[in-house]
């Protein structure tokens, strides 16, 4: 059974076929967030702090940290952000950059086993990222594109994923530490994008036996009512075997879909997480629970 174990200094998170879906909070990313980018550039990390805490509260088990700001010292800022986030939460981190020096700087300060986001099937990227992942004993997100770009043919994307898994093995990285992003296409641009993604996820699981992740909001690009489209995709993708997503945990439709899918998959024993998330809080001034003097024991994990 494939298990990708990520960790911080004090906590482990497992991505796997038989455990709850892992939501990796995407918010700490200045791409498309002008204010955050400007603040990070001048060393103001207050929003990074707030984003980290809010995402954990909303149910993210891991956090993605990206410091991709044009014309800035990305390695230094990324390392700084990682240290900050690790001081605030015990969630393992996905270190996110397309610049190898930034990944290196992030890994150098990281405590625990990180998820490196990401490597592609491009020869040069493979040669530079995989040794770094191996050296730090990290896991890696494998994006299924190569020099020729992103293929519209899911079979080709599968072959790229296979190539990355094989190359990772050459560097001593187990397939368990490769989490494949099958690249979800906008269904608004191509009717078959949804079904090919689901088929690809299934094949990655059954044939390569790897965990998978994705940017779930890609699927709804260009459409109205996006959160519900994302939610529909997420629950179907989980049914097909997807095991994690890099997404915004502050969006309730997506989180409800993930929690519901966990229940349906049998990964939420006694519906505990579902009930915890959706039990109505007691009305103000009322006793917490009927005649109960505030629990001293929690339900067993």
């Amino acid at each position, binding site marked *: 059974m494939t298990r990708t174990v990520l960790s911080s200094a004090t906590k482990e998170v497992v991505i796997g076929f038989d455990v709850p879906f892992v939501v990796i909070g995407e918010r700490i990313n200045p791409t498309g967030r002008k204010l955050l980018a400007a603040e990070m550039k001048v060393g103001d990390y207050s929003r990074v702090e707030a984003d980290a805490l809010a995402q954990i509260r909303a149910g993210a088990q891991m956090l993605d940290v990206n410091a991709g700001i044009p014309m800035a010292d990305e390695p230094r800022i990324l390392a700084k952000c990682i240290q900050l986030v690790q001081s605030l939460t015990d969630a393992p981190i996905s270190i996110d950059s397309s610049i190898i020096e930034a990944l290196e700087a992030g890994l150098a300060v990281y405590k625990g086993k990180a998820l490196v986001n990401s490597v592609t099937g491009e020869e040069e990227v493979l040669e530079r990222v995989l040794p770094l992942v191996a050296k730090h004993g990290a896991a890696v997100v494998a994006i299924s594109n190569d020099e020729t770009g992103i293929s519209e043919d899911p079979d080709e994307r599968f072959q790229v994923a296979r190539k990355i898994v094989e190359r990772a093995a050459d560097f001593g990285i187990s397939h368990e530490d490769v989490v494949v992003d099958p690249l979800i296409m906008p269904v608004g641009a191509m009717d078959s994008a949804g079904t090919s993604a689901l088929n690809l996820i299934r094949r990655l699981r059954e044939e390569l036996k790897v965990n998978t992740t994705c940017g779930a909001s890609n699927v709804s690009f260009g459409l109205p009512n996006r959160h519900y489209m994302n939610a529909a995709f997420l629950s179907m993708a989980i049914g097909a075997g997807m095991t994690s997503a890099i997404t915004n945990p502050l969006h309730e439709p997506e989180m409800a879909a993930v929690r519901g899918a966990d229940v349906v998959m049998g990964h939420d024993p006694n519906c505990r997480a579902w009930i915890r998330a959706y039990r109505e809080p007691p009305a103000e001034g009322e006793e917490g629970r009927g005649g109960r003097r505030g629990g001293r024991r*929690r*339900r067993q994990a």
Partner: protein
Amino acid sequence: MAENDGQVDGEDDVVLAELNDADLVAQMHDDLYDGLADEIAEGTNILLQRDWEPYKVLTEALVEGMRIVGIDFRDGILFVPEVLQSANAMKAGMAILRPLLAESGAPRMGKIVIGTVKGDIHDIGKNLVGMMMEGAGFEVIDIGINNDVDAYLTALDEHQPDILGMSALLTTTMPYMKVVVEALKEKGIRNDYIVLVGGAPLNEEFADNVGADAYCRDAAISVEIAKEFMSKRQGSAAAVGMAAQ
């Protein structure tokens, strides 16, 4: 629990044997609420070692704990999976107490034969009622699904319960309850039993119409109604019971 020691806020560090009786019973109420079967078994044994009568353990620790669970279930604070875990914890205590209760000739809460009617295979609600009844200290004989008149009569004859509970989830199967009640009448044994009926499509009017004693809207209410009828019944039979002891 040991693996949690020293983690979080140390609230798992309760050592049952070190609590005085009142705190232990209160803790058992909490542990029932939280569905902790091992802890309930442990607490039950500790109380027995402290020379508590089995019947006192049953009523003050277990039944009272399940009463609280029942209230919060009724009020939508607890949900089905949680109540099932609580019932499971209760069972762990009952497994220890049952033989002792039988020996000691303690007063009975009551006995119920419960089953889903002919043509109907739905049993989640019926099972829940059974568990809540057990939680309240009733002896429950669950005869399963798809029961025809003969099956009910055989079970009544064999187990001599106080209560007959019938469940149906379909409008097409619920009229069969009337068939069963009519059969009881024909045999002249209708009044030997409290007849309770329940199921999603039923209502009070229907229960009256088939000749049941009461309609039970949900599992928590079933227990309340059963207790009410039992106290009436035992009120009249009390003298007989005393004489028997």
